[in-house]
C-alpha cells in the first residue's frame, strides 16, 4: 500500500468501533487490548507522529501555522510511514490555509463513517461533558476545530472539523478519491455484510469465518466490559459516561429534547435527507 488508508468520520460516529474490529482482524480475530492494540490503527493527528514527521514541535506553532503545515506533513507520512490511520479531519481548507490537512494526493483510500447527527449529538455531550445543547451548537459551527491546547498540552494537533454537514459532504463529494462510505446504522443492522465490504476495500481477509471472529472480539459488549475492567485511555477526562456508552442507533428519540432534535434536523436537513436520516 502506498499512501494513507484512512478511517475518517465526524467525532462519535463509530470510528473507534472500526479500529477495534480492524485491530482484532489484523491479529487473526484475537481479543484485543483496548489500551494497546488500537495503536495498530494510529490517530493521524497524534502529536508525536505529527511532530516526528514535521521535524518540529507543534506546541511551538499557532493554529494557523499548524493549518499551513499539516498538508505538508501528511504527504511526508504518506511517503515515509504509509498505512492505516484514523482521523476526524474534514476535507475542507481551514481558515488561513491553502489546502486541506490531508490532501487527496496523500490518500490511497478512505473509509468514511457517517452516523445520524441526533445520535452523534447525544454521544458528543457524554464524551466531552457538554450539555446536549452545546453539542447541537458545536455541530452547526463551521469553524469547529479540535485538538487545540488550552492550559495543557492536547495529545492531538489541531484538526479543522467544521460542521457536521460540511464534514460529511467534504468527504462524500470529494473527487478523485477511492472512497467507501459506510452508515453506522448499516454496520449495526448487518455487520457481517458491511464489514465484509470494509475488508474487501482494505484488501484484508474477507472470509466469513474470519470476519465473524473479529466482530465478536470487537463487539460492544466485549469493549464495554473491558473498559469497565481496565479503563480506556482515549476516554476524555471531562467525560460524564464510559467511552463505550450505548453504541446503538436511534437513542436520540428518548434522550434528545424534541426542540434540539428539530434544530439538528433543520440545520442539517439536506445532508440528512441524502443519507436517509428521517
Amino acid at each position, binding site marked *: 500500500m502506498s499512501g494513507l488508508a484512512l478511517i475518517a468520520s465526524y467525532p462519535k460516529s463509530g470510528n473507534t468501533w472500526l479500529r477495534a474490529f480492524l485491530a482484532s482482524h489484523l491479529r487473526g480475530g484475537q481479543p484485543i*487490548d483496548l*489500551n*494497546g492494540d488500537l495503536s495498530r490503527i494510529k490517530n493521524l493527528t497524534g*502529536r*508525536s507522529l505529527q*511532530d516526528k*514527521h*514535521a*521535524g*518540529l*514541535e*507543534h*506546541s*511551538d*506553532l*499557532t493554529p*494557523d*501555522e499548524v493549518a*499551513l*503545515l499539516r498538508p*505538508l*506533513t501528511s504527504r*511526508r507520512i504518506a511517503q515515509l510511514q504509509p498505512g492505516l490511520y484514523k482521523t476526524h479531519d474534514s476535507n475542507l481548507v481551514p481558515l488561513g490555509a491553502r489546502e486541506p490537512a490531508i490532501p487527496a494526493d496523500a490518500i490511497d483510500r478512505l473509509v468514511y463513517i457517517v452516523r445520524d447527527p441526533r445520535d452523534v449529538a447525544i454521544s458528543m455531550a457524554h464524551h466531552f461533558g457538554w450539555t446536549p445543547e452545546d453539542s447541537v451548537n458545536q455541530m452547526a459551527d463551521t469553524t469547529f476545530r479540535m485538538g487545540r*491546547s*488550552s*492550559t*495543557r*498540552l492536547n*495529545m492531538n494537533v489541531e484538526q479543522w472539523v467544521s460542521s457536521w454537514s460540511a464534514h460529511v459532504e467534504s468527504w462524500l463529494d470529494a473527487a478523485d478519491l477511492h472512497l467507501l462510505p459506510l452508515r453506522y446504522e448499516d454496520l449495526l443492522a448487518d455487520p457481517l455484510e458491511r464489514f465484509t465490504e470494509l475488508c474487501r476495500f482494505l484488501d484484508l481477509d474477507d472470509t466469513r469465518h474470519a470476519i465473524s471472529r473479529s466482530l465478536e472480539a470487537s463487539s460492544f459488549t466485549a469493549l464495554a466490559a473491558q473498559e469497565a475492567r*481496565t479503563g480506556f485511555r482515549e476516554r476524555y477526562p471531562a467525560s460524564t459516561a464510559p467511552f463505550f456508552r450505548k453504541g446503538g442507533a436511534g437513542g436520540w428519540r428518548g434522550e434528545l429534547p424534541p426542540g434540539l432534535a428539530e434544530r439538528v434536523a433543520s440545520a442539517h436537513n439536506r445532508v440528512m435527507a441524502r443519507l436517509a436520516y428521517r
Partner: protein
Amino acid sequence: MPMTDGLLCGWRIRSEIALPELLSWQGDDRPPDLTVCLGEVDEHLPGGREISPFIHIDTNGAGLLQVPMVGRFLVRPSGDITVAPHPEASETEIRLFLLGSVLGLVCHQRALLPLHASSVVIEGGAVAFCGHSGMGKSTLALRFARRGHAVVSDDVCVLDSGPPARVRPSFPRLKLWRDAIEDAALSSEGLERNRRGQEKYHFLEPEAGVRDPLPLRAIFLLRRPERGEAEGIERLSAPLDILAALEAETFRPQIGRALGTEKALFQARTLIANSVPVYQLRRPPDAPPERWLDAIAAIVRG
C-alpha cells in the same frame, strides 16, 4: 546599542537580538563563535533540499528555517546566523526558534549530539529527562528547580564530543503550560507567552544558570506504562535498546542525516550507552511528578 556577548553551550554568541535567557560571556577574548544579525533572508535556499516542511539544507551545510508567522533564519556553518523576522513576530517568538530549532541546527553543523531533553544538576552532574511532548520533561525539571537544582537545558540538551560524556549547558529557561505552572503552586502572571494567545509560558531561573560543561550522570526516558506494565523506574541494560532509545531522542535527526554527521552522533550515543546509566521512568503523563523526585535523586546519588 552595544550588547555584551552571551554564553550558549560553551559558545560565545554576539547577537543583535537581546537574549535575556543567556548568561553573559566571561571567557577569553576570542572572536564570537556565533553571530546573530537582522537582515534579509531569501525564501529560497539555492541548492537547498527539503529536510522537513519548514527546513531546507544546501550542499555547503547551510540551513534555512522558515516559520510562517515568525520569520526566516539562515544558519551558515561558519556560525553566522541571519534572522528576517515576520513584521508581527514578537522578540519572544523569535528567540523561541533561535534557541530551539536553530540551536539544534548549529549542533548538527558541528557534529555535536543534541538530545531532545530537559536537564538539571543533581550531585554535580547533569541529569536529562527525555520523552515525547506532553510526557512531562519540563515539568520534572521545574520541580527540581524549585528544590534548588540548577536548570541546564530545556528542549535541546547538547552533548560535548567527549569522552567523557558531558553536557554543554544551554540556559535556565523552561517552557511550561499554565496547568504545570499552577500545579507547582506558581503563577503565570508576568511570564512571557511561548506564542501569542497560547497558555504556554517561558519560566526563567536566571540566577540558576550553569557555565561549564557537566558530566552526564543519568538519562531518564519518560514513558507511559503499556499493557499492564507497572509504574516505576527500571534501568535499561541491553546496549542496543539504549542506542535505539537515544536515536529516538535525538533532536531533529533528519538534519544530522542530511549533513552527514551520523557517524559522530552514533559515536556520541555509543559513549553514553557505554558509560551513562539510562533508565525508563514509567508513569502516566498527567500523574503528579512530586512522588518521583526523591526516587530520581536517590538513584543518581547511587
